[in-house]
């Protein structure tokens, strides 16, 4: 049954239009800008909710626009799309609130929020893309929309980081384009199909398909920060905290990981990809990234850089889950898409709060900060435990399914990787927690701002607490209906068991 054709487009427009209007706003129209942002975010949430409900009722939302004969822009709301769309919509709202609080009184806010909205638009577009070309379109838009956010501060370091970011992503985009076009010349279609659309391709092209796979993965791997394509991510930390949060939790990094999920499931198809023998190396690559990222995180004193390397490591959980080639691992990978988002955004919010309230940027400055900002650090603690994979936070659920999936697929080595990563995660998160809660606070913080009786501004405090609660809920209530886990199961069923 077909639902409203325009709904996917409306979901995209709900952030695009406010963004475009905001670009035109004068710097001092603060109220209007906030209103636009929030209305956009709430409308998007409502629309996504509508779409979720409709899809669960069996409605089918799809929109098509012909680009070239045989080449269409397609927006479609499937289970996988909805998972990512919901994540983006929810986190956008939260991040918007946070960003409003964070950027109060700083210059160039119109520009910031404009690109911010564009960034979300692109992410939602990536999520809803119904074929590879649409994905590519929004993926590139994402590159362009994020760049101004990375360099927003305008310092020399920001400019350099922006440059690095661009070099990586533009290169990745080029590889992606190449792979896409090549694929198109072989198949004549790019439509995402459960279990892939390549089974018709003849034997003689299999080598080409392997190269295409490598190209596509490399293209997406840049944003997903797969080693050795991760170099831009830690540098991009010069951006303001809401950007880092969005960059790492939802938009950029996830778009890359999501792309890999799409490639493996809906382009190649799990079965076909395993037949080609490409998932094994992918799993290894993901494993290396997981360990490497954690190792590097261990040695960072800068809090945000530590978190960034942690992202490098964690995002590859998703890829690992996808590459293990089994339904249960797939659940783990896909659900981690959401879980990691919730947990990492919490961590970045908290890092932003520390920087904004107390001027703390380094781990070594965090002594006793838990007593000064208990709520922030409580949220941080939840996030950190989630990253370690300790119950009951959401990360535990992901790790559980990944491990189980690895056992099921007969790839025991993955367990060792997971264990090693958890260990390393503990090694770089627990000392932070220890410092924050048990060390004596210093006499003076590096740069303290006064917020009266509260530990920090409410707009800054609420978002991390909310996301931390969500991360907790996603773990505790994993088996409740509409939980991320349940969606992930649905997706895995569609990929593995439907005829």
């Amino acid at each position: 049954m077909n639902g409203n054709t325009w709904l996917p487009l409306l979901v995209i427009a709900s952030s695009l239009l406010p963004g475009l209007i905001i670009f035109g706003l004068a710097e001092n129209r603060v109220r209007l800008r906030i209103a636009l942002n929030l209305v956009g975010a709430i409308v998007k949430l409502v629309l996504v909710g509508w779409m979720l409900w409709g899809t669960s009722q069996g409605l089918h939302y799809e929109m098509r626009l012909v680009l070239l004969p045989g080449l269409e822009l397609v927006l479609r709301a499937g289970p996988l799309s909805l998972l990512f769309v919901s994540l983006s919509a929810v986190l956008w709202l939260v991040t918007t609130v946070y960003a409003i609080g964070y950027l109060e009184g700083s210059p160039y806010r119109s520009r910031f929020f404009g690109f911010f909205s564009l960034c979300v638009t692109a992410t939602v577009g990536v999520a809803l893309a119904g074929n590879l070309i649409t994905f590519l379109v929004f993926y590139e838009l994402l590159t362009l929309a994020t760049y101004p956010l990375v360099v927003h501060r305008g310092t020399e370091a920001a400019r350099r980081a922006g440059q690095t970011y661009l070099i990586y992503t533009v290169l990745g985009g080029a590889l992606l384009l190449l792979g896409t076009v090549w694929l198109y010349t072989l198949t004549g279609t790019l439509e995402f199909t459960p279990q892939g659309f390549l089974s018709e391709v003849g034997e003689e092209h299999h080598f080409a398909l392997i190269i295409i796979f490598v190209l596509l993965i490399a293209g997406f791997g840049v944003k997903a920060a797969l080693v050795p394509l991760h170099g831009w991510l830690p540098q991009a930390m010069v951006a303001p905290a809401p950007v880092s949060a969005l960059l790492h939790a939802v938009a950029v990094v996830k778009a890359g990981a999501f792309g890999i999920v799409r490639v493996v499931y809906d382009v190649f198809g799990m079965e076909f990809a395993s037949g080609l023998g490409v998932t094994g190396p992918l799993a290894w690559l993901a494993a290396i990234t997981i360990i490497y990222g954690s190792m590097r995180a261990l040695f960072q004193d800068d809090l945000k850089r530590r978190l960034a390397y942690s992202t490098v490591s964690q995002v590859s959980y998703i890829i690992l889950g996808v590459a293990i080639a089994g339904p249960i691992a797939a659940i783990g990978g896909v659900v981690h898409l959401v879980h990691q988002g919730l947990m990492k955004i919490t961590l970045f919010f908290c890092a932003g709060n520390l920087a904004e309230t107390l001027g703390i940027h380094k781990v070594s400055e965090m002594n006793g900060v838990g007593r000064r900002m208990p709520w922030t650090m409580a949220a941080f603690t939840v996030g950190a435990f989630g990253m370690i994979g300790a119950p009951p936070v959401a990360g535990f659920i992901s790790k559980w399914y990944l491990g189980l999936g690895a056992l099921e697929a007969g790839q025991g080595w993955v367990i060792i990787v997971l264990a090693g990563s958890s260990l390393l995660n503990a090694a770089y998160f627990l000392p932070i927690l220890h410092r924050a809660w048990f060390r004596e606070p210093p006499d003076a913080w590096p740069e303290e701002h006064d917020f009266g009786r509260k530990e920090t501004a409410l707009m800054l405090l609420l978002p991390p607490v909310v996301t931390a609660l969500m991360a907790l809920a996603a773990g505790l209530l994993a088996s409740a209906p509409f939980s991320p886990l349940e969606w992930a199961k649905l997706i895995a069923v569609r990929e593995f068991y439907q005829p």
Partner: protein
Amino acid sequence: MGAEVSDIPWGLVLILLPLMGGMACFLWPRVTTMLGLVTVFGVALSVAGLGWQILENGVYRHAVGGWGAPLGIDLYADGLSLLMLTATALVGLGVSVYSAAYFRREDATRFWPLWLFLLAGLNALFLSADIFNLYVTLELMGLAAVALAALTGGKDALGGAMRYLLAALLGSLAYLLGVALLYHGFGTVDITLLGQRVESGPVLWAALGLMGAGLLLKTAVFPLHFWLPPAHASAPAPVSALLSALVVKASFYILLRLWLSIFGPLVGEEGVDTLLGLLGATAVLWGSVQALRQTRLKLLIAYSTVAQIGYLFLAFPLAAAAGVTAWHAVIYLAFSHALAKAAMFLVAGNLLRFGGHDRIADLDRVVQRLPLTTGAFALAGVSIMGLPPSGGFIGKWLLLEMALAQGRWDLVVVMILGGLLAAGYIFKVLGRAFTQAEVTHKSRAVPACMEWAALLLAIGAVLLGFLAVPVLSVVGIGDPFGVSGVRP
């Protein structure tokens, strides 16, 4: 009334109107801007009228003087011509609106007649079906362009214009000698008739050598691009826009027409088209690298033109097997490049006016104050880089698709590299937009219409990405690529 509107010979209006406008501007310099604007709007309307006629009745042909080829001259417009005319009209409109604010009184009286004659030359060129007549239009266009390029005066502009003039004359003389050979060899100068009569032989080869080299020189293909950057960089901004967007495309159009109707079907296997492809590939790489190395914005944009022209030639080696699609790609690239590049030069003009210089390293003080202008540059850049969903993307997608389907990895690599380098030089400029720096010097206000003209052109270049299906179906009217679409 409707019938009468459809009876108006819009194609002829397209030529006569700007001629009259130009002369009127010459006669009444006091109202020159208004006359110019009215004329350009009229031309745009006429293109719409012609387009409507072509859509309704198919190919447009007009035998001047009623004689008909080969004795007389035929005007001819198919989908290809229509597209080029549309590009001319759109860019012309944008540039005209911009120029109305850009030029002050004295300069305006010099600019407008020259520009209207240039417009007449362009329209006549795209409508012509006669190689000698094409020569005349080529000269009309060339002289107007040189005069426009020299408009700012000063050492750089004059030197650039001089170089441009010599190159243009050399090119058109070579072309004319080719025309002479073809006429004496086959007894006609009408393209269609020539296409039927020509046969392979020394005359054809020599003609191809002469006309090809001449037109390549005028199109500024590597290594014959040397005249372009100085001329385009030192001209006033709207003029640079016109030169880069339209004038260069006009000679390419002639080359394409000749190739499609006369030379393409007859030349030997994989010789000339390989050479052209090679030149194109080198141009893409060389132009992009040079653009990346420039320290001044206008030179950067000019070298980018060199690179983008290279893309147009990548289609030649692909066309033999891919046929119409290759030409579709080329046309699309040319169209979107026209819009995007015009926008870029207008942006450069805005920045120059605002900051008084176009040194890229010092642009940060300027760029932030002109968000619309910066936006225009970014959007145009999207198309130049070939990022989706712009017009440039469609063109590059088609080219890439064909190159991959034919296993032409060399071309694939060139295209990808070209795109990357393009991103490099675009962001070299855009990266300055976010550096925070104080405005330390006096700046001149930029009128809103100058900013919007640039922005609208850039938006047009991006929107083209969504219009591929209708545009390409229009291009196909009259089957312009039919003759040598597929080598027999």
